């Protein structure tokens, strides 16, 4: 059973619908007992870091996630769920969960490409350059593009945590992978077939 962590984040239903479409059973919950019994954990999220962390702390889910990560259970972070697994986020100057060393940064205001100022948020389809193969990205075409909506990006301090990068006026880490954790800035649940493939792979992944 896949558990989607319920912490008042925006895209939980979309993730659930995507899992349903690939025939995967799931439960949406903030109950740590139910989360304990899950084989895989999805940590989604749309919203602001400050509010999200406040809610997680209130439910003690931040410590649960740490224990879960140490226990080796496969964890998938999406968007905000990727940003707040680092130590700190510039959004609302928030101390975060700290599964991975590093911080979440805001895009600079004046990102440029070919003399044109780029819009923040970075919104739309964009590619990912992978640094190495990973079981969660098996059968995902190299040229596949994914749907991004964000103003902040994860910046892990250890380069080895970076699995994939994306260019938007600058190169940023769009996928990070450490042990049993894989986390992406884009939305697999809104990225069409390649996105569903990632979810399928994750559900079959043993975290190794």
């Amino acid at each position: 059973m896949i558990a989607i962590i319920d912490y008042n984040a925006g895209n939980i239903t979309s993730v659930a619908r995507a899992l349903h479409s690939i025939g995967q059973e799931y439960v949406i919950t903030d109950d740590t007992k139910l989360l304990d019994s899950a084989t895989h954990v999805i940590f989604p999220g749309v919203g602001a870091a400050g509010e999200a962390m406040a809610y997680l702390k209130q439910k003690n889910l931040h410590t649960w996630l740490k224990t879960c990560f140490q226990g080796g259970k496969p964890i998938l972070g999406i968007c905000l769920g990727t940003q707040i697994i680092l130590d700190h986020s510039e959004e609302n100057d928030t101390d975060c969960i700290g599964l991975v060393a590093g911080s979440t940064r805001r895009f600079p205001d004046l990102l440029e490409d070919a003399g044109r100022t780029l819009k923040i948020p970075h919104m739309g389809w964009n590619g990912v350059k992978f640094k190495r193969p990973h079981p969660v990205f098996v059968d995902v075409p190299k040229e596949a593009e994914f749907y991004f909506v964000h103003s902040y990006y994860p910046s892990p301090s250890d380069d080895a945590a970076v699995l994939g990068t994306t260019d938007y006026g600058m190169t940023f880490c769009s996928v990070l992978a450490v042990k049993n954790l894989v986390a992406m800035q884009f939305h697999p649940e809104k990225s069409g077939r390649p996105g569903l493939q990632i979810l399928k792979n994750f559900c079959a992944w043993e975290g190794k």
Partner: protein
Amino acid sequence: MKDIDSDGLKKCARGKAHKYRGMRHTFTYAAVTRDVVQRSIWTFCEVVMISKRIIPCLDVRDGKLTKGIKFKGNIDIGDPVEVAREYYEQGADEIVFYDITASSDKRDIMIDVVRRVAETIFIPFSVGGGIRNLDDMRKVILAGAEKVSVNSSAVLDPKIISQGAKAFGSQCVVLGMDVKKGDIGKQTPSGYEIVIEGGRRFTGIDALWWAKEAERLGAGEICLNSRL
């Protein structure tokens, strides 16, 4: 906006150009026309940094997909959910739905369509038509749409843009603009005028000014419909 030349706009409006490359190849204007899409909608984006997007636009009346010619004589042509699925499977990047239901008591049918669409396709989609206030926006978002598009209501009361952006984020708020070409004048220096209520009512508002104003108010995207 100022990079749009009238020739490109016309080509897109006629729906003949599937792709129109603008000045210095900075933008790609993608016009999408298909049998069931009576209106060509187009979008512009940076070729280099962000991929070109193909966004079919579907009109829904009383829960049925409908097609008209120049917005008149609409006939029902099927289930919007099935057609959305077809586009999704063909590789559309996003889908836009317009609810053109005339009577407000049938609006809830659209919410049901949105819910079914969200269960069927796994790409972003936006919903517009008859969105008058925050509550209308909330209903559409809760039913599963990523974005809400406002058009006439924003012209009549621009606050809906800023309120929507504050409540749901700019990425959620799309300004739909219906534009007619006119004379370049004092009131409309760009030569394009905003029309509302399905193109029936001229507003005297300059299209370029309105686009900038909407951006200032917090609109995250503009969906431009030519009423040439």
